[in-house]
């Protein structure tokens, strides 16, 4: 009897539970409604988009929008370019940011403070302010309208360095000292000791870089003109004609474009939760 009363005291009341369920249900509907609407729109012909009353479930189901993406537009190129460039930038940035972060977190050298300050200042400068000088430099290197123009500039973004530096700084110095005394060089320490221990942080950072690269718009718009070398964000914006907007086509393009990123987030969500709770509890 007493145990049952104690259990009841710790659990929410039925009314509270009902209210929570109702609020959550409304939130889910509000969050997913636009998504379902885009799915519905992508499966309809343009002429039936404005029928009244609006129909959530398309009838008949029209796959022409998806076919048109690949048959009438270089959507495959856009998707391939975006995935490849995002993957390459992610891989390179993990290496560059990891090495820089390790040096700033665990090595002592003259000018370290000045370098950190310079990096911090550069983070504060918005891309829009850098657009013209970046374009001029890229053009002088002969890289305008190439895929390299989309790969090289993002490597210079120092934001990731600070993120990884925080993970590495949290590692005990004794681990590094011990590895040095055992004969490991700095690259070996980074590879064998540091990287395995900050893996969840690296996964989060990699996902963040990938998502940023995947959704970038302004620089590709400026640096690349050939549609076959373009990325998916610019490509989708080009689907909008001057006088008409094919919402069915754009909806289909958006869904296909969102798929890889969604899959990545689902695959690595465990790392996100793990990293967000890291340090919250005493070990």
């Amino acid at each position, binding site marked *: 009897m007493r145990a049952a009363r104690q259990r009841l005291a710790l659990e929410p009341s039925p009314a509270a539970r009902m209210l929570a369920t109702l609020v959550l249900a409304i939130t889910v509907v509000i969050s997913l409604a636009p998504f379902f609407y885009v799915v519905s729109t992508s499966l309809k012909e343009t002429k039936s988009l404005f029928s009244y009353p609006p129909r959530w479930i398309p009838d008949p189901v029209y796959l022409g929008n998806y076919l048109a993406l690949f048959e009438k537009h270089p959507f495959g190129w856009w998707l391939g370019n975006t995935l490849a460039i995002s993957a390459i930038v992610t891989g390179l940035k993990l290496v560059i940011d990891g090495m820089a972060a390790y040096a700033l977190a665990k090595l002592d050298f003259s000018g370290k403070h000045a370098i950190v300050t310079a990096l911090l200042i550069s983070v504060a400068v918005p891309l829009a302010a850098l657009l013209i000088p970046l374009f001029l430099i890229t053009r002088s290197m002969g890289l305008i309208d190439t895929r390299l123009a989309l790969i090289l500039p993002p490597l210079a973004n120092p934001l990731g360095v600070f993120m990884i530096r925080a993970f590495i700084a949290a590692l*005990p110095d*004794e*681990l590094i*000292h*011990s*590895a*040095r*005394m*055992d*004969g*490991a*060089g700095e690259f*070996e320490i980074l590879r064998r*000791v540091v990287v*395995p*221990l900050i893996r969840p942080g690296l996964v989060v950072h990699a996902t963040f870089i990938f998502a940023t690269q995947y959704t970038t718009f302004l620089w590709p718009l400026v640096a690349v003109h050939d549609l076959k070398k373009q990325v998916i964000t610019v490509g989708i914006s080009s689907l909008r004609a001057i006088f008409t907007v094919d919402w069915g086509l754009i909806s289909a393009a958006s869904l296909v474009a969102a798929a890889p990123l969604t899959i990545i987030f689902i695959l690595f969500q465990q790392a996100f939760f793990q990293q967000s709770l890291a340090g919250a509890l005493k070990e």
Partner: protein
Amino acid sequence: MDARPDKTPCLKLANVSKSYGDATALNRVSMTAGEGEFVCLLGPSGCGKSTILRLVAGIESCDEGEILIEGRVANYVRPSERNVAMVFQSYALYPHMTVRDNIAFPLTTRHGRHFDRATAANRVAEVAQLVDLSDKLDRLPSQLSGGQRQRVALARSIVRHPVAFLMDEPLSNLDALLRHEMRQSLIDLHRRVGRTTIYVTHDQLEAMTMANRIVVMDHGRIQQVGTPREVFERPANRFVAGFVGLPSMNMLSGHIKGAKFVSLHGAIFELPVFAFLVQDGMNVVLGLRPTDIFFGPARPGTVSLSGSVSRVEYGGGDVFVDLALSEAERLRLRASPEKPVGVGDRIEAYIPLAALHLFDAEGASLRRPEVAA
């Protein structure tokens, strides 16, 4: 202050100084450790003992002075090439590697890569057996107890066959019972391995039971170097006298009058003045160890003490009593559990003359060097 064995010491610090900004961690420290010796660096937190270890290991560099390892100056030698191994307070085990991989790590790095796989595996097995971890080689550190993790850290040091071990309070994270067991294990291990060991601790019991020699430090300076017996029975100054020995030595301030010590509040003690370098009227501090004071009337060769009991502390096998000589002066002594005393009881006690310690106004011992305790 240093002690010099006859042959080239394994480790030697010569006038080493180290500062962190305005804070002086070490002030012209000189010490040696001979082949196979177990030397304890003992002192309160912040006295510089861990700094010495870090300088010898090469983790930090000294501002002045020389560090010699096997007779060679090591100031500019990389940590991996000094051939010393360090056991950290937190063990510094690699949490993502198994016990086997942790122990084998020094043999697989750039410095240790000249070992072939078979030799490295044999060495790991040999050392694992030495520290009784043969059946735990495939476990991760998180699956081990505190004592087992410490043994992995020891094994990782031993596998390199260094010339010296540097241990930075390796037992401080263990509970009292486990600390006692591991102390014995370390003593056995040192006997078997036979390498020079520099052991840092703030626990005097560890230092007294484990060391061949103790280096007592305070505020970046060496206060005394000696065997445990020397440091306990003939402390060089008030700091050593008060730090070594539990409970701490009782200290009474006063002056010399004739052949007697007169405390600030009038307590008078006969002194064996032939044993001390004193002058009439000199301000001094008299030291009396609680364990040297006994209940009962004075006898020949002892000094009488009497007073009322102001506090009784029961510690199981030991009972400690505060004896008030006057309102402002109290002495701590050990009582027998079989003869209980109560607060307010008037008791008589005595201390052998030979057990008295005397220090000058600056704290230096006034004992004549040629007179034994």
